[in-house]
Structures are given as C-alpha cells and as structure tokens.
C-alpha cells in the first residue's frame, strides 16, 4: 500500500504539470471554491479548453481516432487533480466531455463522430444534456417532449428544464418520445439537436445559489434531420443509459472533492478561529473536525476506487456511493465554513466582501439533486450493491399513452 505514483503515473503527472506551466498565461485561473459564471466568462473558458485540448489534456480516455489521447482512467484522474492544483476552473464543456461525447462515440454514425467530436474537445462547440422535463426528472422515462417523423426530418415539440449550460451550448443530446403507444421505456429516441436551430428557446433559471447555470429549453416545431438521430428509433432509453452511466463515473469520481476541499476548510479555520469566542471555538472545532473526517473518508474511498481502476477494474454501481459521500461531506464542510464566520455569517458577505462560503453552502442542495438525487442513488446502491428487492413498478409495461394503466 502506498500513495505514490507508479513511475509511469509520475512521469505522466510531470508532463501534465509542465504543460500547465508552459501555457499558464493562456489559461483562466480562479481561487479555490470560486464559482465561475459561464455566461460572462464564456470566451475565456472556451479559450482555456482549446489550449488544453491542443496540449493533449482533454478527452484523455477518448480513442485517438476521435481526437482523444487513448489514455487510461487513471491518467484522466491525474489530469483532473493537476487542473485542480493549478486552479484551472471546470472545463466549460464538461457535460460534453463527460456525457454527450461518450454517447456519440457509442451510438453515433461515423459521419456524426467526425463532424462533432474533435470540435467538442476543443470547445469549438459546447454541448448540453437535454433529458429532464418538468414532469420527469428521477422518473426520466416519463418524458413527454415529442418527435414526429415528417419526411427526412423529425419535428420536435416540448419543454426541457434544468439544462446546465444550455445558454452557451451549440449542440445538445435530446431525448424524445417518438411512440406513445409503446411502454414508456420503449418509445423513446435520442437526437443531436442544434441549439441555434429555429424554434429552440433558452430561458435562464435562477438558482437558490444566485447563479444561473441552468435553463428551461422550449422546442416549438424544431426540425431535426433524420441524420442527427443517435441510435435507432425506439432505442433512446438504451442510448440514454450510456449517458447516465458515464454521468455517474464523471460525478462519483476517483477521489476528487465534490465541494470545497478539506485543505480550504483548514486554511479558513486557521484565519477565522481566533476571532471567535471560546464557546464558539469549541463548537466550530467540532464542526470542522466532523467535516474533515467526512471529506477524508470520501477522498480515501475514492483512492481505493482509483486503485481498482488502475488495475484494470471497471467502474461499478459503487460510483453512486462516491457521490452520496461527497454530497454529505460537502454539506458538512460548507456548514463548518459558514459557522466559522460567527455572527457575520448571517450577512451575505463578510466585512471585506468575501462571500465564498455562503455561496458554496447555497450550492450544496443542488449537488444532492443533480445527476441523480440522494434517494435515487440509495435505491441504486440498495438494489445493485446490497441486493435488496427493486422498487415496485406499476408503469413499466403498459402503453405510455394510457398513463401507465392497462
């Protein structure tokens, strides 16, 4: 047991570091935990991703024929760690890289792959994932957005919601219902949609954290050529599962912190503890200790998964445990961070204008919902890891148009 890189990992890491140093002046850098608004900083974010892509640090695990590096998941994780260390913010096309691209690779035509993938890696095109609807989030297969065949095109009507990055996206993967007479999982079809096509309207949604990273998206008679279909008609659920599987791996990751890092909490505690009353200090230290323990437990569990991957293992349903643990830790870390502010915490920012911890705290509830809620992840773990009976289903076999009733 050790925490050192293997010689190959060490030389790869050194390579990544030197690339990041060489291009430092061309990359966007932010303070730890600082949220980055994709709307106001779109150009810088796109430039940053392009520079990284040209240096071979984007799409590490993607096959070379699609512009990737043909690398391992471990190399991918090392790049992630080093980007974090260098304080480069999350790539603007993270949804494209983590979810949309792998879906195009798995289910797209050769033509689609050659048109889209290299541009996606360079952030020439930013992508979004158009799955959730007002009436179908956890129960994704209940979606209603319809696509109706009309000659060489499909005509799409409906509404998506909570679509992260739709406001800057050029393309999206869009899950639609093409056959309501079939059971809910069977009548779905996936498309690539041009977000600039006529009839697509994107409206920002403000989040409780104050930012607006996600959106409502409306489709009014939007025409999508049949050549933009991903997979066969009626096979959309199978295609979506590819996306969702990649999403779990992208979020439940190998040892990266979901919220602010334990080190950032420690530094904050060092600054703020002395200003608290003795009674407050006792409580704050308990909160800090509890938060550090939870986030270290999550981090080291990620390292164990990381080791499995580096030995050729495949990511399993345990990835969901990584997200659950990370969400719980993020809640404790941000709570402790805010508690350390003492009475000032009730104001939106401290006297010097800093609102990092308040904003981080307001982001945690979203983490517990996005990419599968805590409850849905517990269902997955209960069934797939503990082997407990599946959730009862009354709506699986009846035609969707009958509302799930026979």
């Amino acid at each position, binding site marked *: *047991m*050790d*925490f*050192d*890189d*293997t010689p190959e*990992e060490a030389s790869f890491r050194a390579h990544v570091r030197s690339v990041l140093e060489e291009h430092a002046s061309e990359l966007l850098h932010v303070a730890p935990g600082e949220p980055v608004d994709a709307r106001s900083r779109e150009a810088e974010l796109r430039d940053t991703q392009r520079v990284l892509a040209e240096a071979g640090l984007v799409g590490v695990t993607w096959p070379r024929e699609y512009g990737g590096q043909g690398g391992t998941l471990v190399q991918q994780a090392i790049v992630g760690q080093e980007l974090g260390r260098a304080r480069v913010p999350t790539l603007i096309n993270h949804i494209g890289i983590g979810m949309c691209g792998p879906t195009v690779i798995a289910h797209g035509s050769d033509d689609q792959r050659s048109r889209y993938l290299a541009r996606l890696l360079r952030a020439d095109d930013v992508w979004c994932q158009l799955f959730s609807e007002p009436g179908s989030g956890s129960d994704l297969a209940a979606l209603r957005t319809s696509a109706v065949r009309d000659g060489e095109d499909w005509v799409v009507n409906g509404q998506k919601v909570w679509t992260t990055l739709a406001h800057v996206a050029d393309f999206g993967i869009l899950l639609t219902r093409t056959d309501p007479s079939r059971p809910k999982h069977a009548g779905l079809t996936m498309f690539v949609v041009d977000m600039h096509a006529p009839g697509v309207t994107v409206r920002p949604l403000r989040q409780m954290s104050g930012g607006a990273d996600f959106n409502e998206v409306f489709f009014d008679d939007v025409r999508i050529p049949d050549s933009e279909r991903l997979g066969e008609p009626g096979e959309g659920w199978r295609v979506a599962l590819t996306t969702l599987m990649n999403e779990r791996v992208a979020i439940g990751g190998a040892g990266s912190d979901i919220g602010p890092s*334990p*080190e950032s909490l*420690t530094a904050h*505690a*060092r600054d703020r*503890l002395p200003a608290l009353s003795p009674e407050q200090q*006792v409580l*704050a*230290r*308990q909160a*800090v*200790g*509890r938060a*550090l*323990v*939870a986030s*270290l*437990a*999550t981090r*080291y*569990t990620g*390292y*164990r998964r*990381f*080791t*499995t991957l*580096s*030995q050729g293992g495949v990511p399993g349903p*345990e990835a969901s*445990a990584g997200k*659950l*643990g990370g969400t719980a830790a993020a809640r404790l870390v941000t709570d402790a961070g805010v508690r350390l502010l003492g009475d000032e915490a009730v104001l939106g920012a401290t006297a010097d204008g800093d609102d990092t911890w308040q904003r981080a705290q307001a982001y945690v509830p979203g983490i517990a919902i996005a990419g599968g809620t805590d*409850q849905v992840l*517990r*269902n997955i*773990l*209960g069934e797939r*890891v*503990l*082997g*407990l*009976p*599946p*959730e*009862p289903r009354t709506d699986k076999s009846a035609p969707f148009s009958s509302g799930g009733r026979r």
Partner: protein
Amino acid sequence: MNFDLSDDQRDAAAGAREFFTGSVPLSAARAALEGEGPPAPGRKALADIGFLGITVPESAGGAGGSVLDLAVVAEQAGAVLAGPSLVTAARAAVLLEGAPDLAAQLADGSAAIAVLDGPVTGSAPSLDAADATLFLGLDGGALVVGEGEVTPGRPMDATRGLASVRMTSRRVLAEDAGELWARARQVGAVVMAAEDLGAADRAVLVGVDYAQQRQAFGRVIGSYQAVKHMLVDAWVGVDQLRSLVWWAAWAADSSPAELPLAAAAAKAYAAEVAERATETVVQVHGGIGFTWEHDAHLYWRRAKVDRLLLGDAAEHLDAVARLAVAGALG
C-alpha cells in the same frame, strides 16, 4: 498509487476470518454477559495462532508485522466480537519496544497484560483488565509496569474485559514516556477502529439478510425505502470507514507525522459508523431485534462501549480540527 491490501494481507484476512468464525461463537459473548465464562477465543488461543505478536519484533518472538497487518486481522476479530482485544496487544507492543522480554511474554501469552487508562492509583475502566495480571500505566510521565488489584464493573459489553485497577507494585520501564504513550494510544485507536469496522460490517450484513427474508404488507421489507435507505447509509459508512482504517494503519507504519490526525479521524468515524450500523440492525429486526436471544444487541453493546473507550468522538473531532489547523493537512 496503490491504496489496497497486498495479496499477503488478503490471505491473512481470509485466514483470520476462518479462525475467528471457527473459534468464536456469538453465544460466547452472551454467555460472558451473563457471567458464564470469559470472552472467546481467549488469550491463549490468540497467542497460539500468533495474533498477539503480529506487531512484536521477530527478535522478541513476534511476527514483526505492520499495524496494517494487524488491522486486517482485527477487522475479522471485530466481526465476531472476539476477546481479548487486539487493541491491547497493539498498544502494549508499542509500549514494550524497549522491553523485549516482556514483549515476548505478550506475544506468547505467558503474561496476561492490560494497559491502564487514567491514574494508576485507581484507573478508568480499562480494556482487557478484568483477567489481566500485569499492567502497563503512565505514572507522572513514566511508563510503569506492575501488578494490581482489579475491580470489574457490571459490563455493558462483557467481551471488552473492562475493569478498574489500582496498581499495587510499580517498576519504571521508561522515564519521559509521554510521546511513546501517545503513539501507543493512537495505534490502539486505529486497531479499535478496525475492530469496529468488522462489527459494523457484520451488523449491516445481518440486517441486509433479514431484510431479504422478512415480509410485511405482502412484500419483503427490504423493498421498502425506509428500510433500504437505512441499510444503504449504514453500508456507505462502513465502506468509508474501511478507507480511513487502512489509511490510519498505513500512517502508523509509514507516515508517523500523519498518524495523530489519521488515528483520530478513524476513531471518531468508527464510533459513528458502528453506532449507526448496530442501531440499524436492531431496528430492521423489529421486535426480534430487541430480544436477548437475538445477536443484534451484542453488536449494539460493542458499539456503545467502544465509542467511549480511548477517547470519545468529541475528543477526536477536536483533535482532528486542531491538528489540521496546525498544518497536519497542508
């Protein structure tokens, strides 16, 4: 990075599992509770198979193994609530670094050694002291060894061998032993976390097993989310605790500067995880879970006792915060 057990350690864990399941029936924990016998498998069996000397140097008749080697065995001991505790062996092995003759007696079981917490003139309830004959204690900064008068209490968990001791003779083994004492306590905390890991893991398995059998309202109870999610939360805790235990044991062997923080983190988390897992297993069993006959309360007792031994969660969370702020995390 290779954050995993070695093949040897995996084999050792499998061997330990076989030994403990074969030699420690859970009925022994209940019998001990009713005053009808000592904890199983007992000091002699543990010495014979070499578990008391895992971290004792080979020159003193031990196996010269690592704390991690010991932790994987301790996990299996915890799964069946074995006694005496490998915590005592681990802690004593550190304290006896400079006394190879005594270390040899620890390893071969010829001395029944316990480590006392609190003042040696009247100790706090101390692990495995009830049937020990030789005691190690900290007396005004010096490490002392001697005999004592034992006062057992009415145990919550009889497998822990808890008793208070008044030392009746004292020989100094080392002056200025504060740091040695602290390290021994940290190693003890790691091994206790490993035993708690084993107990909590087993509790979750017992709960899952029952949730797959028991029916209510026409369905297996494990299909109800109130039950399913409770078990998942307990399982996630166990999975994460395993990571902290391995990290802390690795630190004890390979990164002494990290040990104080890692040990405190593992001990604090172990207390929480074991409590949640064992409360869950009682609840999942309903009325049966509250009966004396069912094993659930034996695990529950272990968790309720262990959370207070070698420092409670409040003490260790505070230590984690202080050490981190002082720079232990970077």
